[in-house]
């Protein structure tokens, strides 16, 4: 973008119209002169009129351009340099894409090695008066001296965290806005098409990409263990592949059990039946034959194995009875006394409000005697919608009782809400529902998800297993309320229930509530990392208007181009001089009709 030292001088640009105006004024009523030899003039003008007319217009144009050039020169214009040899003190955010795809082997070395070399060369051109930041896939912009950042670049390794380049550019822009120096953003990347996203920016962006094409790649996109918990008889795992065309042999193993193998096509999925296991938590691992990108060749899923719940329910409760029949027929529950569904029993109980409001007081007293931290409160008849969460979607709630905590610490047991108010809570071995499972209270019994909701309530929630979550490294995973810790092997993170947890790497994580394991978190690579196809320059320039795409080798030269500005005053004055000379030549003998 050009800028001007004295922009107010540009108000003189209309002066360029002066030659035309003078020309039009002079054209009016020329004097008449008697001249007998007009016949010679007619003869001459017929031969030269076109050339003379062209010359007149050319003269007008040259005079207008001359004025324009002088006015622009007086305004003190300057323009950014395409390649800066030296630069004024600047602010630079160096974005190095060390996402999993940067670990792909190209020409015998990881792609990240090329990016590191380019980062070195960019940082070598910095000066002590520059402000520098390094932004990598962890999303944190680290400020430092050139030496600090060189050391940081040297220690960079491909991580499991996906890097959204649009977010990175946005973050870099936010950082640069805090500095008064002219800023620019340099992105060193393999430029995966899947990593691009729109990014509004007001700083020059230079995208330096690798020249070599990306190798073909197939990666594991998903490992799905289906409905949980598994019974001790075993279960099935679905493994999906993504990437370029072809097939790959996939192997799936659970714990120490035998591996199951099959050929799976890229873009397709394979189903693997796994044998029985003793109750507990199991890690199911899937792997495929290695290729140039190793990090997407393995994935995992957490599986909970437990015997199906033995449930007692009121056969007179129409909707509860119907769903229990379905679950029983599909082997997801048995009749028994382990769990009381609908009313408060001696053991695990899922309690709904009684039909008769007069019985509510008695129920609350029984709950209090059981040590429950929640009780039923007032009846709410204003229609509402349940808040979408891990347990429920957005269900219509016509009537409900408020659920009231008896102690402040009980608030951690909320499993579902309506308009922010507790609707399903767990306290000890009791789960309270604010509404009866009847269409006159909630639309849930009539929805398709009622069966899975009841399955989760009976087999997981009531038994203390709150959630089986999945995510990718670095993603924000929302934890259930009761979770107090996250554990992976010996490593343990103290967390706040209801808050987000960012798993640092791929692997199996267990969600703990005190000393109880209440859930699991399977963290696998983002499947978008397996698509190595790069974006085109047009795509980049469309998404990031005004950006410039160069090869990695050109990055150092282009890095500070935004800060290097050249004055256009000299060239404009030379142009004005040239125009003046041409004007004089045309207006005098050179342009005369001969």
């Amino acid at each position, binding site marked *: 973008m050009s800028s001007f030292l004295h922009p107010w001088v540009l108000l003189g640009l209309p002066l360029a119209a002066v030659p035309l105006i003078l020309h039009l004024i*002079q*054209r009016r009523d*020329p*004097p*008449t*002169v*008697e*001249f*007998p*030899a*007009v*016949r*010679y*003039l*007619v*003869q*001459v*003008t017929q*031969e*030269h009129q076109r050339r*003379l007319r062209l*010359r007149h217009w050319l003269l007008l144009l040259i005079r207008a351009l001359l004025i324009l050039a002088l006015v622009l020169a007086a305004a003190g214009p300057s323009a950014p340099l395409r390649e800066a040899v030296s630069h004024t003190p600047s602010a630079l955010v160096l974005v190095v894409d060390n996402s999993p795809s940067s670990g792909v082997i190209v020409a015998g070395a990881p792609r990240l090695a090329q990016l590191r070399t380019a980062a070195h060369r960019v940082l070598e051109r910095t000066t002590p008066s520059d402000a520098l930041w390094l932004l990598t896939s962890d999303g944190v912009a680290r400020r430092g001296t050139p030496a600090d950042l060189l050391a940081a670049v040297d220690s960079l390794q491909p991580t499991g965290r996906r890097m959204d380049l649009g977010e990175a550019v946005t973050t870099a822009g936010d950082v640069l806005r805090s500095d008064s120096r002219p800023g620019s953003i340099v992105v060193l990347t393999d430029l995966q098409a899947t990593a691009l996203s729109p990014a509004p920016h007001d700083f020059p962006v230079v995208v330096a990409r690798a020249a070599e094409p990306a190798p073909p790649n197939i990666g594991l996109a998903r490992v799905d263990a289906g409905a949980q918990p598994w019974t001790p008889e075993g279960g099935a795992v679905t493994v999906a592949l993504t990437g370029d065309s072809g097939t790959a042999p996939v192997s799936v193993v659970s714990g120490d059990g035998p591996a199951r193998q099959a050929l799976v096509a890229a873009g397709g999925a394979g189903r693997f039946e796994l044998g029985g296991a003793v109750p507990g938590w199991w890690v199911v691992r899937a792997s495929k034959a290695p290729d140039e990108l190793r990090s997407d060749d393995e994935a995992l899923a957490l599986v909970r194995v437990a015997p199906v719940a033995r449930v007692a329910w009121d056969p007179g409760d129409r909707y509860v009875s119907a769903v229990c029949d379905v679950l029983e027929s599909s082997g997801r529950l048995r009749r028994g006394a382990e769990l009381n569904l609908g009313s408060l029993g001696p053991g695990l109980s899922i309690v709904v409000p009684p039909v008769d409001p007069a019985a509510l007081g008695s129920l609350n007293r029984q709950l209090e005697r059981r040590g429950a931290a929640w009780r039923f409160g007032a009846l709410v008849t204003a229609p509402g919608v349940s808040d979408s969460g891990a347990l429920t979607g957005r269900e219509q709630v016509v009537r409900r009782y408020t659920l009231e905590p008896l102690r402040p610490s009980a608030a951690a047991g909320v499993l579902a809400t309506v308009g922010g108010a507790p609707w399903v809570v767990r306290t000890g071995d009791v789960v309270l529902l604010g509404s009866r499972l009847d269409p006159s209270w909630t639309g849930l019994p009539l929805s398709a998800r009622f069966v899975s909701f009841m399955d989760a309530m009976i087999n997981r929630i009531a038994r203390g297993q709150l959630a089986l979550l999945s995510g990718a490294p670095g993603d924000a995973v929302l934890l259930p309320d009761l979770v107090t810790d996250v554990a992976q092997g010996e490593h343990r993170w103290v967390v706040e229930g209801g808050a987000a947890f960012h798993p640092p790497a791929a692997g199996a994580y267990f969600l703990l509530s005190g000393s109880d394991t209440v859930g699991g978190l399977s963290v696998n690579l983002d499947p978008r990392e397996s698509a190595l196809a790069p974006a085109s320059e047009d795509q980049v320039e469309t998404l990031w208007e005004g950006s410039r795409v160069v090869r990695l080798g050109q990055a150092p030269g282009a890095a500070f181009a935004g800060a290097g500005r050249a004055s256009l005053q000299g060239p404009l004055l030379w142009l004005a001089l040239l125009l003046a000379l041409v004007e004089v030549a045309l207006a005098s*003998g050179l*342009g*005369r*009709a*001969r």
Partner: protein
Amino acid sequence: MTAPAASSRPRLDLLDPRQAAHLAGLELLTEGVVEGFLTGLHRSPRRGFSVEFAEHRMYQPGDELRYVDWKLLGRKDRLYVKQYEEETNLRAMLVTDVSRSMAWSGDAETVLSKLDYVQRLAAALALLLIRQRDAVGLIAFDETVRSVVPARARPAQWHQLLATLNALTPGKGTAAEPALRRVVDLLRRRGLVIFISDLLLDRETALLALKFLRHRGHQVIVLHVMDPAELELGGPAEARFEDPETRQGVTLRPKDWVDAYRETVLGVVKAWRRACRASGMQYHQITTDTPFGLALRRVVGGASGQT
């Protein structure tokens, strides 16, 4: 040996035409011009005709030495030159353009109009011819034949011609053909036709008529009289230039067209000269700031074989 003193009277034939016109009226001017011209000429303007010795006169500066009578110098120790008198009965007709364009002058303060110039030049030519005892007549024309004076050799003829020339006023358009046809009626024998015009006329038609005269055996001299301002284009920065005869006009900036115009005019002159020469006619281009003596010298010199 001492040369005789030169006359102290101004040589009207060598003065600027405008200045000369201020000094004397048409008659006196013409006589002065011819006197001066003959004084400097010393030989027959028509050397091609038979000539015989007439008299001696005193040498004057400018006389050619080959006419000095060396024998007389030996006897009397004084310089005399020999003068010759032609033996002729030539009939000449002056055909003069008096159209509106002839009344134009580029600068009336310093230059005579073409018509004024032509009046004086024609009178001088007539006097010169009459003094050689040739018969001289006059036809003035614009779109039509305006005045006709048949050719006569008597001395009173010159005064009649002067009166006719004096009475000429600018006419309208220009058409030379009727005047040149009239010449055929008036010159039965072979004679001399001097066609004086600014030649702003239909060239092909005029040339055809002139060639016809030449075909009839007449000697034809074409005098192309031009104002200096017609050779070099000038004027305001931008102007509409209008033909006083046809009112045809063209608007332009003179400084843009100076060179092209000059080339065109020179081309026209060249075309006239080439056409006349091809038909055995003499052509002389004279500007109105040319002293009459020089103009006469060119015409007379041309008539005697010099062009």
